[in-house]
């Protein structure tokens, strides 16, 4: 079966056993890899209602048929499990050498079950698995853990690890790799931590079977050079993703002061131009053509790798406009293994809640020193506030009461990414219907809204665009497993990926074939949600209430006086459901499930929730 190793490694931490399982072409063609493999496996093997932080949850690393093969930006892997943040399906897409090393070790996916008796690291090499005691680094941050791993095995291995946040089951703990790569903001680091699984290391030497290795090698290397050339010519990586900060500030789309404001006169201090001026190093993922990790010195002199989301949510969203201070918060998050996005969202919520008198505390917006202290308390679940904030903003809001849920900026329990959609209906929809909670990776349509429609409109074209982008961003790139940046930021033709897919698998798929897989995966994620939340309804697909509150409208600037409108948003949401073939609750209909080949999965879901 060209393109796939054809094997999944299943590891049981309870009794330190492992076995190899084969999958057939039918499974490969239906689910392809990455997110497809992950959601199908979790749907089949997890009983609804299990504790995401209990031993029954499973931690999955899943790769796709082009993962690890030299071609533009193929150094990515999916980490997945039942999410401690949302209680639904959760995953993350992260840059890591696991992408090629696990494949070369012989596997397209790794499933980790049970719970170890003591802190453990898995070492996987060419079909062999070792359970390595990791007590020496339990309690240590991800940087020290990484160094320990490299000192044992050298730098030529693929590594996934967690910091103290994962160990202490912080619900938004991430999995870390390389210098500043992180993924699984849905709490995948906590899933590893709940298993006392400190790290996974892989090393392999097997070739990846490909249908046309000569063409793939020639095309892959040629395209790596070409995309690098395009990046250099366009200058994109001079500011990287942070270039968008200044634009968001201009367009009143920047998260400022817990998303209450949309722009700030000091935003320039933490924009892409300033970041580039402070640059001391640049990092990227394996096979990257446009390294987006720009490192600067933080206020403690440490090297901190930043990108837009960290900066916006730990900076303007906390009203901190000092780069070294923002970089310090980012470094701490990376070392503890906390998601920088949720950290920014949770801290901002806490400052806002104190401001509104629903909880006592001395943390204010614009206080990086206290923010840093709080990150430590969160990572270690230290003290009453550390414990509460480690649960995420929604659970914290439920503890604080006083109406604070209205400004816990989250969807389905996951904090919103760094785009303030107070008056951007289509992007608000993208957040609302993101299947893993509010994440921009699924779909991002702000430029489309401004350039091709009007900001004020709630028309079906916006819903259509969200779906079109979900099929690519949340679909294709999540299951062939690659970084979307060359396509999405540099205009690299999407058909290049069908070309790589064909060279590796031999399959001459058209784009519609890929969209079918994307739609299938999205519907299965919805069924996963239905089984966990049988009473789910369309309100679960709404963005935060703050964006609808007229009292929260900007008082000046581009969108003064404007906020989202419930009735219009609901109509936009219905457009989305209609195009997708979902019922009024946002659940795929039986007809849609049949069309997508999910009849068996539908029967399983019907035992828990109603299908129409």
């Amino acid at each position, binding site marked *: 079966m060209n393109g796939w190793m054809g094997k999944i490694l299943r590891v049981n931490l309870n009794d330190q056993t492992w076995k190899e399982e084969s999958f057939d072409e039918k499974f490969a063609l239906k689910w392809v890899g990455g997110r497809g493999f992950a959601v199908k496996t979790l749907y089949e093997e997890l009983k609804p209602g299990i504790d995401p932080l209990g031993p029954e949850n499973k931690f999955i690393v899943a790769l796709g048929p082009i993962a690890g093969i030299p071609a533009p930006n193929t150094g990515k892997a999916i980490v997945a499990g039942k999410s401690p943040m949302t209680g639904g399906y959760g995953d993350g897409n992260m840059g890591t050498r696991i992408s090629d090393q696990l494949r070369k070790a012989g596997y397209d996916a790794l499933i980790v079950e049970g719970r170890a008796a003591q802190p453990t690291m898995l070492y996987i090499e060419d079909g062999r698995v070792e359970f390595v005691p990791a007590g020496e680094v339990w309690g240590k941050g991800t940087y020290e853990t990484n160094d320990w791993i490299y000192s044992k095995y050298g730098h030529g291995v693929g590594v996934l690890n967690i910091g103290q946040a994962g160990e202490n089951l912080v619900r938004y703990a991430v999995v870390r790799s390389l210098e500043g790569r992180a993924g699984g903001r849905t709490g995948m680091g906590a899933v590893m931590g709940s298993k006392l699984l400190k790290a996974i290391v892989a090393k392999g030497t097997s070739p990846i079977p490909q249908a046309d290795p000569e063409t793939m090698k020639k095309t892959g290397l040629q395209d790596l050079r070409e995309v690098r050339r395009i990046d250099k010519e366009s200058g994109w990586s001079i500011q990287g993703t942070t270039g*968008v900060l200044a*634009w968001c500030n201009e367009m009143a789309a920047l998260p400022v002061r817990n998303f209450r404001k949309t722009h700030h006169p000091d935003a320039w201090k933490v924009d892409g131009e300033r970041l580039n001026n402070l640059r001391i190093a640049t990092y990227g993922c394996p096979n990257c053509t446009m390294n987006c990790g720009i490192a600067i010195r933080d206020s403690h002199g440490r090297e901190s790798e930043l990108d837009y989301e960290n900066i916006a949510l730990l900076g303007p969203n906390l009203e901190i406009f000092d780069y070294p201070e923002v970089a310090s918060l980012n470094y701490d998050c990376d070392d503890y293994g906390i998601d920088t996005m949720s950290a920014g969202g949770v801290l901002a919520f806490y400052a806002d809640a104190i401001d509104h008198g629903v909880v006592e505390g001395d943390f204010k917006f614009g206080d990086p020193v206290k923010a840093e202290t709080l990150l430590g308390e969160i990572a270690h679940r230290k003290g009453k506030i550390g414990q509460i904030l480690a649960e995420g903003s929604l659970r914290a809001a439920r503890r604080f009461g006083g109406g604070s849920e209205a400004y816990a900026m989250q969807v389905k329990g996951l904090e919103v990414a760094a785009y303030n959609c107070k008056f951007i209906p289509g992007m608000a929809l993208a957040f609302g219907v993101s299947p893993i909670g509010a994440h921009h990776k699924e779909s991002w349509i702000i430029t489309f809204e401004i*350039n091709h429609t009007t900001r004020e409109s709630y028309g079906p074209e916006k819903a259509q665009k969200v779906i079109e982008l979900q099929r690519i961003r949340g679909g294709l790139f999540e299951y062939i497993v690659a970084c979307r940046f060359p396509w*999405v*930021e540099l205009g690299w033709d999407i058909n290049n990926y069908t070309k790589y897919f064909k060279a590796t698998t031999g399959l001459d798929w058209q784009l519609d074939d890929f969209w079918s897989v994307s739609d299938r995966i999205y519907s299965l994620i919805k069924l996963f949600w239905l089984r966990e939340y049988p009473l789910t309804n369309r309100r679960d697909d709404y963005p935060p209430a703050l964006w609808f509150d007229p009292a929260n409208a900007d008082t000046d600037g581009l969108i003064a006086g404007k906020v989202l409108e419930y009735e219009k948003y609901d109509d936009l949401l219905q457009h989305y459901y209609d195009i997708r073939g979902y019922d009024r609750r946002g659940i795929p209909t039986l007809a849609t499930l049949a069309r997508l080949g999910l009849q068996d999965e539908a029967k399983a879901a019907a035992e828990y929730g109603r299908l129409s």
Partner: protein
Amino acid sequence: MMKVTVKLIGPFIYRAGFSEKEFNLPGRTTAADLLRLINVDMHRPKIMTRNGRAVAPAEMLADRDRIVVSPIYSGG
């Protein structure tokens, strides 16, 4: 004559040599005229807004307009 402020985003800054600048322009200047004037890469996909709204190339500018020219970011 009219005064128009131009804000450039991202890599456009480096080719044009500025990130924000005020221009004195003749009365009948279009958005396309302005782009040619500021040496932005015409081949690069871009989004140009005038006071927060997308502007067509043939649209006439007006005194005290704020023009923002950005590469098309896509949310990272």
